[in-house]
């Protein structure tokens, strides 16, 4: 892959009144990659998306999309962008098919072309048989898929997905993931926000972790986990005596949800040492995830 930056942010800052929502963030998204923004609610992810979409003006800093400044070329940028918003804004006054046709019109697509693309896209998101159904009769997962189809009506070069699977059941989520992967294979640049670490590690080539308007860390999902945590995490749960022997052992740990999470370079050895010492506690070894990276760097959990 050639590293051509399609989105470039430098010192990007956004205030809502007095409230600092995005605090001097810098990042680059390359052509054809899936780039993630992982973080809890209120981290500033959606605000960054809104600035990229040219619907919320930045307070300071630089943001360009394909070398076009968001303030100077909003129409040109929006023409090559496809957006799946966090909040469903499908048109409840129309059927599934008509939603796509009306949206195509906003992009100046001629009627015949719009119909052809709308039919193709309904097939792609597996909603052909819902063509004439009104929006309120769709399930949550179907609405999300239709939002995805709508975002693709202008054949976008860049796809912005703001929490594409929040609130969906696992089956609906996997279907969306499958579609996102197939779009990536077609060479669409994808920007995605999520607070599901699994989603980020499954889909993203690179990602940034955001908290309180700042980018805390940037990298490839597996590399971040390896660098900050290691391969596995030892979890210790139990009475104060059990907890105490971790504290004595001098290992790096975080306390959360009544459990101690021990980030050890050698979890197997640690666990085998701990089991005889702390008989009263429950000790488990599990794979390290991005969630642990977040926990270690911020002292908080991703989901509240």
């Amino acid at each position: 892959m050639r590293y051509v930056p399609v989105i470039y942010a430098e010192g990007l800052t956004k205030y809502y009144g007095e409230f600092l929502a995005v605090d001097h963030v810098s990042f680059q998204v390359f052509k054809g990659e899936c780039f993630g923004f992982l973080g809890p609610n209120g981290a500033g992810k959606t605000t960054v998306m809104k600035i990229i979409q040219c619907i919320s003006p930045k307070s300071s800093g630089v943001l360009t999309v394909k070398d076009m400044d968001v303030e100077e070329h909003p129409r040109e940028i929006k023409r090559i962008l496809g957006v799946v918003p966090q909040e469903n804004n499908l048109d409840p006054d129309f059927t599934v098919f008509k939603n796509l046709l009306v949206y195509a019109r906003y992009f100046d697509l001629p009627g015949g072309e719009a119909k052809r693309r709308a039919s193709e896209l309904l097939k792609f998101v597996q909603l052909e048989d819902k063509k004439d159904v009104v929006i309120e009769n769709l399930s949550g997962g179907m609405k999300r898929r239709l939002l995805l189809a709508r975002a693709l009506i202008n054949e976008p070069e860049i796809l912005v997905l703001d929490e594409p699977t929040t609130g969906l059941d696992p089956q609906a989520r996997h279907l969306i993931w499958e579609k996102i992967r197939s779009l990536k294979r077609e060479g669409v640049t994808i920007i995605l926000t999520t607070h599901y670490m699994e989603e980020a590690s499954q889909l993203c080539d690179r990602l940034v972790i955001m908290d309180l308007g700042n980018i805390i860390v940037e990298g490839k999902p597996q590399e971040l986990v390896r660098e900050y945590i290691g391969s596995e995490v030892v979890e210790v749960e139990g009475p104060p005596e059990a907890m105490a022997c971790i504290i004595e052992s001098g290992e790096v740990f975080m306390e959360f949800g009544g459990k101690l999470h021990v980030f050890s370079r050698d979890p197997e050895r640690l666990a085998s040492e701990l089991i005889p010492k702390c008989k009263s506690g429950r000790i488990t070894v599990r794979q390290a995830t991005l969630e642990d990276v977040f926990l270690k760097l911020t002292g908080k959990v991703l989901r509240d």
Partner: protein
Amino acid sequence: MGFRDYFKMPDVSYRVWKVWLRNWDVFMKTIKVNFIPPFLEPILYLAAMGFGLGSYLGDVEGISYPKFIAPALISISMMNSSFFECTYGSFVRMYYQKTFDAIVATPLNIDEVILGEILWGSTKSVFNASIILLVVSIFQLVKLPEALLIIPLSFLVGVVFASIGMCFTAAAPNIDSFNYPTFLFITPMFLFSGTFFPISILPKTLRDLSFVALPLTHAVHISRSLTLGRMGADYLPSLIWLFTVGTTLTILSINLMKRRLIT
């Protein structure tokens, strides 16, 4: 926001038309039902007030009472259709349906969305006024073909009330807040704009106030001249008044909406 920011020239293109078309498509889904209210309402008013109450009245300013109120009924429907379209209708699309959010993610901007909405509200005014004109023509209460000029007039009056409505929509914290402009502004206008009695019988201060501040007074004034076939220059000031207020408030409402929606 300084004073000048409220009257900044909107950035609009041909894309306004796409917003209008979106609303037109929704309207056409229920076109048969849409004819019923503007068709029935004037018949009810004419029956009760024109022919019922009117039978106790002599001529008003030399014309029969049904003929006197016919242009008022048309003007009232211009006001109601455009004002309510751009208050309740636009608020639902903006706040509950998030239609505006969906549109501004495309090459359209918020200026075009709001202007499209105002032009749509004005179109509703034309639609309703035309149907009522047909009804009162059947009752032979208007002079044709002069009264046909009501149709272009209804667009201008529509712009005025649509943009007034849009200013309220930009300021409305929730949908119930539209009760205030309805009862404090629309209802008094419905009664005191020369609609059911001539404003010449009002005290001079109120009469002047009615001309300076109430758009419906101007709409009724011109409409009545047209339905009576009095083609004169005396309604020119009213036309200028409507045009000036319509364009000013359209620009103002777009800027108010931008302040509300762009954060």
